[in-house]
């Protein structure tokens, strides 16, 4: 167990006691798919992740990147939006000197706080964000209905991310695969956003597992 700094709050999601904001609102199955066709988008929530925001003090950016690499095995470049994604963890740059780190380990945030130490600050957002994965050949088409950002191959290499907004819904988006994107939204907007996403994907036909 990581050694915690005084006053630091790492609050891992306890599966048995946690409720997703989408609980009871995710209908599994295929939607908007004509007979004989297969859905071109897959939607799903990644619930229970550990999520943290890391902010470096000026001049300590490289130390924070190293701390993220050590904790979440995500190698980050200096360029804006640079990110990395592995199966168990990932990170991407969301603002100058600021990164969003996520992973499946419940110890991730506390470990991150130890690793970052005096080089910056760590804020646990494991409960504050809902992560929705949008995958499939039409994922960009669906996301383009909601976000005015260029998600093309050239503009957004795999692993990279960005921060944007759909009107009042602030969102951070990471490209996690050829056609796969993880969208981080504020928990309180999760249900509205899910509804919006399903509506937007209906035209293309989507599947929820």
């Amino acid at each position, binding site marked *: 167990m990581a050694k915690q*700094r*005084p*006053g*630091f*709050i790492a*609050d891992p*999601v*306890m599966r*048995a*006691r*946690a*409720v*997703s*904001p989408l609980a*009871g609102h995710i209908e599994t199955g295929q*939607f*908007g798919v*004509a007979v004989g066709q297969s859905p071109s988008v897959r939607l799903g929530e990644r619930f*229970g992740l550990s999520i943290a*925001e890391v*902010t470096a*003090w000026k001049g300590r950016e490289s130390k924070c990147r190293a701390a993220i690499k050590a904790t979440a095995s995500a190698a980050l470049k200096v360029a804006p939006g640079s990110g990395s994604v592995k199966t168990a963890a990932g990170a991407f740059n969301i603002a100058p000197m600021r990164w969003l780190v996520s992973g499946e380990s419940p110890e991730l945030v506390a470990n991150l706080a130890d690793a970052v130490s005096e080089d*910056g*600050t760590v*804020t*646990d*957002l*494991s*409960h*504050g*964000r809902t992560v929705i994965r949008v995958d499939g050949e039409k994922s960009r088409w669906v996301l*383009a*209905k*909601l*976000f*005015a*950002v*260029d998600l*093309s191959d050239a*503009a957004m290499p795999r692993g990279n991310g960005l921060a944007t907004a*759909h*009107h*009042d*819904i602030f969102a951070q988006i990471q490209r996690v695969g050829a056609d796969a994107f993880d969208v981080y939204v*504020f*928990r*309180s*907007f999760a*249900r*509205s*956003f899910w*509804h*919006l996403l399903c*509506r*937007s994907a*209906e*035209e*293309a*036909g989507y599947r929820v597992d």
Partner: protein
Amino acid sequence: MTSHRISTGGRIDRDKPVAFTFDGKRYSGFEGDTLASALLASGVRLFGRSFKYHRPRGLLAAGYEEPNALVTVTTDGAREPNIRATELEIHDGLVAESQNRFPSLAYDLMAVNGLAGKVFSAGFYYKTFMGPVIGPLKGTRFWMFCETFIRRAAGLGAAGTTPDPSRYERMNAFCDVLVVGSGPSGLEAARKAAADGKRVILCETAASFGGTANWSGKDGEMFADTVLSGLKSEPNVQLLNRTTVWGYYDGNTLAALERVTDHVGRPRAGKPRHRHWVIRAGHVVIATGALERGFVFPGNDRPGVMLADSAQRFACEYGALPGRRMVVFANNDSAYQAAARLRERGAEIVAIVDVRPTVGDWAQSLAAEAGAETIPAHAVTGTSGGKSLTGVTIRGFDAETGNLSGSKRRIACDTLLVSGGWSPVLHLASQAGAKPVWSDKLHAFLPPESDGAWEAVGSAAGEGIEPPEPVFEIAATGGKAFVDFQHDVTADDVRLAHREGFQSVEHLKRYTTLGMATDQGKTANVPGMAIMAAALGKPIPEVGTTRFRPPFTGASLGALAAERYGDLRPERLTPMHDQHVAAGANMYAAGLWFRPESYNRPGETVEEAYVREARNVRRNVGIVDVSTLGKIDIQGPDAGEFLNRVYTNNFGSLPVNKARYGLMLREDGFALDDGTTWRLSEDRFLMTTTTANAGRVMQHMEFYLECVWPDLRVNLTSVTDQWAGAAVSGPKSRDVLAACVKLTKVDNDTLPFMGIVHGKIAGAPVMICRLSFSGERAYEVYCGAHHGPHVWDALMNAGASHDIQPYGLEALGTLRIEKGHVTGAEIDGRTTARDLHLDWMLSKKKPFIGSAMMDREGLTDPRRWTLVGVISLSGEKLRGGSHIVDGPAEKPGRSLGHITAMCYSPLYGKYIGLALVENGVARIGTRGFATDPARSKTHIPVEFVNHVFYDPKGGRMHG
């Protein structure tokens, strides 16, 4: 009716008949037909009644420039008016109606307006309906009185009143090159850009790509098909038909409307009706072509008068022949080509009347091909027929002087094809900020030099346009000569406006309403300006043109609202939302948040519910969801110093694991927000803000950290959504916590007022701060938001034996009003700390934001509106927002302030409220009135009291 359908050719599919109704009558056409072409093929000539005079009108054009044939489409009970029949693709079950007629299109009673012609001239409304100088209908009131009746008599289609059931959506797109228009020039531009490896979007407003290639020649059609099939196989090219680019905005951002499913009766599930495209383009190619214009002469609006190129389009693209016996009236060679093509498709071309004294060889040979008599140096001076053309009158014409000569000759015909020259479609270039340039050769406005962000190609740039003889009007007598068909503006209206002193083209436009109808004067503007220029005695370029503005053609409001409408409006829900709903709460929209207003039991009113809930807090214990409070994680070695500068009171001295109530001012010295901030460690604080101001406070602090004090080492992160919060309030609150909190004690020594402890409830980590908004002993319990429902249930279970009840916003408000605590209703941007009796929080030991300005003269005036309590003396319910006055209902006097919040107080058994009142403190103990003359019409005697109604010493919350 006879069929005007040509047996071969065109882009219609004769194997797929389509049935539809127009004005209740059944018709059939083919897939690929527009309503206009299908009706034309069925022999229909009459499409609508005109705006002011209710004159019969037919088709003038075949595309988006059509001014006359506007129809209303009814889908599942929802009406959409003012759709151009020339753009409306028919589908099985389409129901369309003509407009602006009563009781029917053929027998329109309002046509009597035509007899009263002079009355409806330019500026008619402004002049006639100004009322007398005095009296009940003085000035514009008379206009307002008459308007209802005028609107019924003059106007376009009526909008529906039922909600629109259609689905709309938005699409964001990025490309290197956007090509607008898919005629030969647009296709060529797209092909070239695609070959260079560019990301290309090609938009075509019509159903099929190809533009003029679809109707003006076999070679063009083949070229278009070849290029198109090439483009379709390019992965970097997106082809959008039925998509009108209607707006050109800063930063090469363009707006387009895609009509996704209007052309099919029942769209597949999930398909939107319209899609609003926002396209960010590196470069824009304007390949929008040119529009033909007609002539202004008496009777030029009679059904059967049609633009020559449009007639060609109907015949060639849709296989619908506009008439059998045609006369052409032209000032340029392009009409000769149309005549030859129409002849080829089976029309008889009787004569070609040309204003020019001589006609060139090419035109002569085309005329011979068309089998038409060529009549140079003549002009059409009138038309005959009732609701359909039966003939035209021509006379000798001198194009130099405009003089008519010789005797009238009548030619029988059912169609008059007019071609008065061409206007490049430069709307988008003009929207981009470029001022159109007049060409003396083409007698049209051309796009100017580009700034590099866009280019115009093809006929949009004036290329390939036949130069016309500059004749716009045939000044003959014998009836109204229309310039703007859709707004019924005549040549005489333009001249009248000039005589009345309107010199500027912008004024002319507004006074006559020329070019202000839904077609934006696409066929009318240039003739209108030419007539104005002639009246002014100036050349056209000196008169100039009006600036084109978006939208190019109408964009549906639904598409613009798309993802913000109905159930797609975003809602913010707290982690315990479902529990509130299950407990019977009626949810209340507070900004984007949904919060319980009260938990009504069966048969209870909202007032009965909140009074019960508030009483239970005072007697036993209540629980309220406070997850919506703004929460900001403030970290860094300078966090304490930063808060000292942001808050009016001292936070640097706050001990770890203690909270303090804080007040922020704006730079101008007025109050900004309040809340409690908790010190979690030496370099870490958790700030809470009011729900409504969370975003604003965050921005406020970010501004100072980034722009004013970048030397401070402090990081801010919004954690509003990370924490679920529940306030447990009431004398038994400690018992409830003691029954469920593990790993810490909650007694008064361990957890005193403003103390913080960490523990667990039902296995989930919690952070508890002892705070009170209600005035009772109370605790705010925070846990990770995903654990919120679990912890809430555990608190409810632990409280069951203590009669715990959830309470909503109304009870929360009642408790805080009794306690005299302020919220956003009092911190309204106009109040100071002193106004709210919070001057005890203004530190004198340090500067803070607002400290330099808060003592200005005017902010310290004792007569300012200050916070007081009010009690209704009559037992009547007070209304929030009521004005405070000191006179009786008959003579209330001026406003002395207003009620900011009210409730029924279970403590007093009366309606009480908080109010901001002039010289408020001095009024305590005196009486006045709360008056609400506009809404509830109440005028209630009130007594002014101290703003703290309940437990002013605070014994209950500290105990």
